């Protein structure tokens, strides 16, 4: 099933770098877009969610959605070693519906 595509990485950056994580999707009906962080052998932890197109900022994290291109991004500014994890994008058609996840991008921030 290729509803949501995400580059699995791995991605390795130095501490303090700006990280860009991306997902593309095929179903134009998706309306809600989420980013989860998952540490090894743990459950996904919700970072941010956005509705439709636009930007949303929360501290060092910025989520962008471009529905015309079917492309979403998560930017992490001033990356820290504690940001090292797998980042999952997820999206859904409407509230209460199932989430479709990407494969996850493995990120390592090197001190």
């Amino acid at each position, binding site marked *: 099933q290729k509803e*949501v595509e995400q580059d699995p990485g791995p991605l390795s950056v130095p501490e303090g770098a700006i990280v860009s994580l991306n997902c593309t999707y095929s179903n134009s009906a998706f309306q*809600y877009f*989420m980013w*989860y962080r998952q540490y090894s*052998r*743990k*459950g*996904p*932890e*919700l970072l941010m*969610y956005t*509705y439709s197109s636009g930007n949303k900022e929360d501290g060092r994290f910025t989520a962008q959605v471009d529905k015309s291109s079917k492309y979403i991004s998560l930017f992490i500014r001033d990356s820290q070693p504690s940001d090292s994890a797998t980042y*999952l994008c*997820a999206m*859904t058609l409407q*509230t*209460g*519906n*199932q*989430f*479709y*996840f*990407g*494969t*996850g991008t493995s990120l390592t921030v090197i001190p």
Partner: protein
Amino acid sequence: EPEVTQTPSHQVTQMGQEVILRCVPISNHLYFYWYRQILGQKVEFLVSFYNNEISEKSEIFDDQFSVERPDGSNFTLKIRSTKLEDSAMYFCASSLDARSTEAFFGQGTRLTVV
């Protein structure tokens, strides 16, 4: 901080046996989900549950699977006759209600079928 709690953290079972995975969702949440993640693969939706009935289910959620909310706090996933391919990490999640997209996941139960 409220969290979704899952037990056990790891379950090993023989093929053909029944297993019950348990979850305690966040206390004021009304919408519940089960997802699974086979090693190295995507997180996949199994089922959602709201108002004491299944709201949505995937193709994976066949007759071998069932869910139940036996009391006011627990939410369970039962696999009647486990197969080797059921080996995966099973995640329970909950959200406030059907209008919320903020789903909070538990730590997962690693199911190993031998």
